[in-house]
């Protein structure tokens, strides 16, 4: 299912309503991505097929208007998968369910996924977290971004070993070659590289019948931070120069 199959949500602004300049990410290019995230493999989900608009497949020079980026993820040289999304966690457990999506399609352990949510200096523009739209829309975008990254990593391993990509499998952050009993980690594959992939709507994703992690009941990925009091809610944050506002009412 693609996101286009969903009817427009009554509260969802159209693309034309999105501001053309958003904060620090008015335009995204290769340099900006890797300055933010460090070397590795970055996958950007674009809402329209920008490659066809630009008429170019040269990712090193293509600049993405930020209003067209839905989500992006980055696999670092340390194997950490950073996921950038404008959706926010308020107890509906999307930090966990979106992690499940990424773990499923990218084939990485939960512990290697870092969800950067709602940090407006870093994440793509998002209209907001409401109306049960996170899983159908953001979930689908991250599923596609993750599927693209997995396919790219398998291709990289295939080139590395000079074998057919079809004979390789990805699991737990590694690409496996069952025929020759060898494996290589995503971290090793992305070392020293600055790869930026753009994906549009038509990438192939796993059918729901093959899900092993998605759609299953799991514990919160950051459960221990809540039961130890370490989780910082907005009201727990202190920022230099922060001012406080209060509504004063007549007694």
């Amino acid at each position, binding site marked *: 299912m693609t996101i286009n199959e969903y009817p427009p949500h009554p509260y969802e602004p159209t693309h034309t309503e999105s501001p053309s300049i958003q904060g620090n990410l008015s335009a995204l290019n290769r340099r900006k991505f890797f300055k933010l995230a460090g070397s590795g493999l970055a996958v950007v989900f674009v809402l329209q097929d920008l490659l066809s608009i630009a008429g170019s497949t040269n990712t090193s020079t293509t600049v993405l208007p930020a209003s067209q980026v839905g989500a992006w993820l980055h696999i670092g040289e340390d194997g950490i998968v950073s996921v950038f999304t404008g959706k926010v966690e308020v107890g509906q457990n999307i930090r966990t369910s979106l992690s499940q999506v990424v773990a499923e399609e990218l084939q990485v352990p939960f512990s290697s996924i870092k969800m950067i949510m709602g940090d407006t200096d870093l994440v793509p523009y998002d209209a907001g977290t409401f109306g049960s739209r996170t899983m159908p829309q953001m979930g689908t975008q991250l599923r596609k971004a993750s599927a693209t990254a997995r396919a790219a990593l398998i291709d990289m391993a295939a080139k590395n070993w000079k074998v057919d990509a079809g004979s390789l499998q990805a699991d737990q952050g590694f690409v496996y070659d069952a025929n020759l009993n060898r494996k290589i980690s995503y971290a090793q594959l992305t070392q020293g590289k600055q790869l930026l992939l753009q994906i549009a709507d038509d990438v192939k994703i796993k059918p729901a019948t093959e899900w092993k992690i998605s759609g299953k009941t799991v*514990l919160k990925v950051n459960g221990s931070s809540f039961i*130890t009091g370490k989780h910082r809610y907005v009201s727990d944050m202190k920022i230099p120069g922060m001012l406080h506002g209060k509504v004063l009412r007549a007694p």
Partner: protein
Amino acid sequence: MVLTINGIRRKIEPDSSTDLLNVLRNNLNLTGSKYGCGEGAFGACTVLMNGKPARSCVTTTLSAVGKEIITIEGLEKNGQLHAVQKAFLETDPFQCSYCAPGMIMSAVALLEKNPSPSDEEIIAAMNGNICRCGTYLNIVKAIKLASKS
């Protein structure tokens, strides 16, 4: 003014807030205890004072002097979670978890007094802690689990 918090003696400026919760959160940066209503009805600010649950938002800083105060940050011992924390982690009862610190502190106090409470006793003891997500049945399950460990 000196307060004993999580086994550590902490010097507090004499012009600090008059309520204990403010001192914990703003002077000592122990933000695990939450501000809910400011009048002791919500329970998210619950700490232990000499082993008894106390609503820190309506506890005067002065009355806490000389008492052993334990906050959610002080339950872990040598990197090991408290049995109640373990049970809550395993049961994963909450949605937003804002009430979690207060719930856990009240549950610790209950189980110290009554190690194997009935459902009714759990509900009675936890009556002063509110969960606006409404996850009460799961919370009772977590406390039941903790009582078995």
